[in-house]
């Protein structure tokens, strides 16, 4: 039984890892060939991400977009989650629903909606429209983590602060905010990583005026192969693993993913 179980884990692990192993392999090819096992060894394709102007600009655009849109998503989610926790206002749940909808529906729908909107309003192609678009698209992530975070706060803490003379604003600053901070960080991190990798919304809103890394890879893919695609993929995978690893290290990942109660 234990053998079967291990075998099953190995099989799933292999399925998940295989494409990535091959990509990692081709990323260290010495020449610009798509070959696996790799021929020769070179890290130059990783250098290319930073040295080649096109790739560097795309990386910079992606990082900027991810950093700003995740921040905006957090700014939208925080007051909303706080309000829903603090007040009884059943009709306000509609905004919770609106916040979760973009991520639940097929992404092409949100993308097309935003495309028609920016085109109609005449801002189509402006870089900042991508920031807003991503913030709305990914607002679900901080909203969910923050709602979880608020629900974990013992309401008697707020009452205790009030008995000691703190008003609503002070309570928020001195009690609620410190307790919710880990959830803010993870909400931001989730939105950041997903924005970094997002293609269709970015493509439909600013695809013709700027290149994020996923757009750049897709465009490159249509014109043929370059190993930089492989190195960027590995690079992004490492960033994601690093971010989620840090969340796991400093936070409670199983709990964040909805496994409440005692872990085993």
């Amino acid at each position, binding site marked *: 039984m234990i053998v079967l179980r291990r075998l*099953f*884990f190995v099989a799933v692990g292999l*399925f998940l890892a*295989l*494409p*990535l192993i*091959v*990509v990692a392999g081709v990323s260290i090819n010495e020449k610009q060939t*798509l070959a*696996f096992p790799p021929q020769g060894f070179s890290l130059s394709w990783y250098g290319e991400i930073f040295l080649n102007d096109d790739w560097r600009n795309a990386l910079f655009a992606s990082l900027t977009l991810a950093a700003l849109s995740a921040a905006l998503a957090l700014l*939208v*989610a925080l*007051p909303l989650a706080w*309000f829903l926790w603090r007040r*009884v*206002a059943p009709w*306000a749940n509609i*905004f919770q629903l*609106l*916040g979760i909808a973009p991520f639940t*529906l*097929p992404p*092409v*729908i*949100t993308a*097309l909606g*935003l*495309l*028609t*909107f920016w*085109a*109609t309003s005449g801002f189509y192609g402006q870089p900042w429209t991508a920031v807003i*678009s991503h*913030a*709305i698209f990914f*607002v679900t992530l901080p909203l969910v983590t923050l709602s979880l975070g608020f629900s974990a706060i013992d*309401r*008697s803490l707020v009452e205790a602060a009030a008995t000691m003379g703190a008003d609503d604003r002070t309570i928020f600053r001195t009690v609620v905010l410190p307790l919710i901070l880990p959830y803010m960080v993870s909400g931001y991190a989730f939105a950041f990583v997903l924005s970094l*990798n997002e*293609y*269709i919304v970015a493509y*439909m809103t600013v*695809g013709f005026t700027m290149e994020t890394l996923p757009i750049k*890879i*897709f465009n490159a*893919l249509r014109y043929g192969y370059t190993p930089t695609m492989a190195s960027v*993929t590995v690079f*992004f*995978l490492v960033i*994601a*693993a690093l971010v*989620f*690893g840090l969340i796991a290290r400093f936070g409670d*990942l*199983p709990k964040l*993913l*909805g*496994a*409440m109660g005692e*872990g085993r």
Partner: protein
Amino acid sequence: MRREPPQRFADYGPLVFPAAMLVIFFVIPFATMIAVSFFERQQGGFYEPAFVFDNYGRFLSLFFGKVLGFSLFLAMAVAAACVTIGVPFTYLLSRSSRAAQIRWLVALLSILSLSEVMIGFAWSTLLSRTAGITNLFALLGLMEAPQALTPSFGAVMTAMTYQALPYTVLILYPALVRLDPTLTEAARTLGASPFKAFFNVVVPALRNTILATLIMVFIFALGSYLLPQLLGRPQHWTLSVLITDQAIYQSNMPFAAAMAVFLVLVSLSLVGLAVYAGRQKEAA
């Protein structure tokens, strides 16, 4: 702290910014898209306000029917594959040590966040003639010479399963972690082998969760827009691909919008179904 209804107008303050953002940048774009779906297309990729059903009328063609049918079939197949692998996997994962769970969760999240472009690229490499898995088969003597496995239906299906599997596991995870471990232990003391206990107790006890997951993954797979393009032939294109194609390359926004509205309706009714299935779970 007792939760209380807002007392004064100022109590609504925190709601203003999020509400405005969501209304302006989600509700209005959505409405714009619905409006555009009734517009008339002009020459050269522009469109004019109108109120015609022509764009919806095009759904009645055989071509569209085929695409729709294939999209639904593909999404269904992917959802079924993911749930078949995901349920036993997540069950075993939820019974593993905390450290093992965390390692898997980090890996799954990393793959889930990986851009569809990159997943498409990775699979097209793995299935390619020059750098692909067939080289390994050839090396082991299982195959005479390496060959390309794309474009093909199998490639699309495999890559989409790859993309959706982490999502499946992460949806199933909370329910399976919360599943009382003594249920299977009780089944074992009553004489059920671990296999029997899984199929007799875990699966039926989670029936509604599994159904809801199936639907969620179905919607997720329905949204896949790049993998069918990168790894399949034109007959493997899905509704999402068609929408992207019409909007960007054919510059037929009204038709794209009409298809998107249609996709929303399909998805929303399925979400409704998933929520309903989830409710049943609590009632049971």
